[in-house]
């Protein structure tokens, strides 16, 4: 017996999806605003990392006559302060969240939603970003007052940066989500996730600006997704990238979002066949 499912017209489907995103994002904002202290805990923990890097490289720059590989103390400060925003934008529904979702038996409920699994996660975390950015602003002012960043972006750089941080969010969502599928096969994926993060740290510009890395690392980074989640968004605001480089960077992000989505879909279609829910 076949069942006729009434399908909304194409325009109606997009409209519904748009409404879903707006509503979920508003819900995320309202929900996360309730937990300001725990959000600040998370944020302060993350800000410690770039502050440490910043202090170390500033110390070296001061020791070496004012700059390291042409990067001055003020430019290091700009890099790592913008880093803090990019890092916050890069918190996505990644592997540990997938592990939690499966372990706590929440996936069965999520599967009942009449839409692709990625939408809710993308929308909720996107809404959360607005709370995160609002809470980040005073921290950014404080860090700027202490470390005196050299930051003088053009209007184009600011516009590209706004697109680039959302591009980074999507690239990282796709790849972290794909890695998260490993949880359907093993409960001991922590080492693989750590390895992924370690590679990301070295090849993304998260640990140090890629300029400080050996030439072959910089070349390799151009052909992998990591740089487009950290290095490029930061450089788009604090670096001296040409208009062509800025636009090519956004295109590279779009390409990696597409590749990441395809990889996620392949991984998801295999992974979900292994899912067994008991008692739901």
């Amino acid at each position, binding site marked *: 017996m076949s069942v006729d499912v009434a399908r909304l017209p194409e325009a109606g489907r997009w409209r519904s999806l748009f409404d879903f995103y707006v509503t979920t994002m508003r819900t995320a904002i309202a929900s996360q605003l309730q*937990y300001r*202290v*725990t*959000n600040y*805990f*998370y944020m*302060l*923990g*993350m*800000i*410690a*990392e770039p*502050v*440490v890097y910043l*202090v*170390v490289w500033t*110390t*070296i720059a001061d*020791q*070496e006559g004012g700059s*390291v*590989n042409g990067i001055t103390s003020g430019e290091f400060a700009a890099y790592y302060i913008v880093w803090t925003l990019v890092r916050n934008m890069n918190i996505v529904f990644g592997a540990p969240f997938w592990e939690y979702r499966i372990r706590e038996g929440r996936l069965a409920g999520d599967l009942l939603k009449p839409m692709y699994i990625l939408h809710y996660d993308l929308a909720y975390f996107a809404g959360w970003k607005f709370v995160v950015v609002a809470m980040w602003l005073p921290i950014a002012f404080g860090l700027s007052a*202490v470390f005196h960043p050299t930051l003088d972006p053009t209007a184009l750089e600011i516009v590209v940066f706004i697109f680039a941080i959302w591009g980074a969010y999507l690239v990282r969502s796709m790849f972290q989500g794909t890695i998260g599928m490993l949880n359907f096969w093993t409960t*001991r994926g*922590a*080492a693989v996730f*750590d*390895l992924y993060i*370690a590679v990301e*740290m*070295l090849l993304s510009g998260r*640990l*140090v600006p890629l300029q*400080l*890395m050996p030439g072959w690392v910089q070349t390799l980074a151009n052909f992998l997704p990591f740089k487009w989640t950290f290095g490029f968004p930061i450089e788009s605001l604090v670096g001296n990238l040409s208009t062509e480089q800025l636009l090519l960077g956004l295109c590279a992000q779009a390409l990696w979002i597409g590749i990441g989505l395809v990889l996620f879909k392949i991984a998801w279609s295999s992974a979900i066949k292994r899912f067994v829910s008991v008692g739901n």
Partner: protein
Amino acid sequence: MNALRVSWLFLKIGVINELQYRVNFFVQLLQSLIQVGTALIMLALVYSHTTELNGWSESELLSLIGVQVLLGGFIHTFIQPNMQRLMEDVQQGTLDYALTKPEDSQLLISVRMVQIWQVVEIASGLILLSVGLSGVQQSIGVVDAIAFGIALLIGGVLVYCFWLVITTGAFWIVRMENVLELFEGIYQTGRWPVTVYPGWLRYSVTFLVPIGFAVTVPAEALTSRLQWPTLVFAFVFGAAVFAFTRWFWHYGLRHYSGASA
């Protein structure tokens, strides 16, 4: 004496429980290798651009990283699992089970859990420390070694106190899970000598969040930088922080009503 017996008993139970999950050893080994590898790459990057960092040579800094990894292993083996359990118990109201036992509550909530496979991290720290020290010019005397042991013990106590004070916040703030991220982030400050940091940050990681202090002082002992007054001060400071932590724990307990009470 009874406290030691209870701690030993919990340790034995924890070890027996963890030994059931032997694959965790290999997972932990791989995680430690990744952690150490990343730290070594960062060290190599730094020293490819300079010969010393605020007076610390590459070998001395490797020793410091060894101490940080070693202390991190101790934290992940003994302190963090207990603090996470405490947070969960307060959230779920199951802390009653610990409080109703005829033993000191602070002792019980501090020794209930042990993640024995994390000792791999302690071993990694010791290896890094040994390699680092082999490159240090000065020889290490018995006095240095004793000072190191004392300083490391004080460092462990300081980190425990910091964790417990933060975790006690669960009596007022229910959602505390992000405190783990907070601690892991702040703990990274210990990977570099406190003297690198600007004044306000140096005082913060010495007194407010004593991570830098807990790692740097033992490393200073091994690199012949430690002055005896600093060690005496560390002892007094550690004792004062412990006394404050104990008072704060009992103060926090008064705000716990339990779920079944």
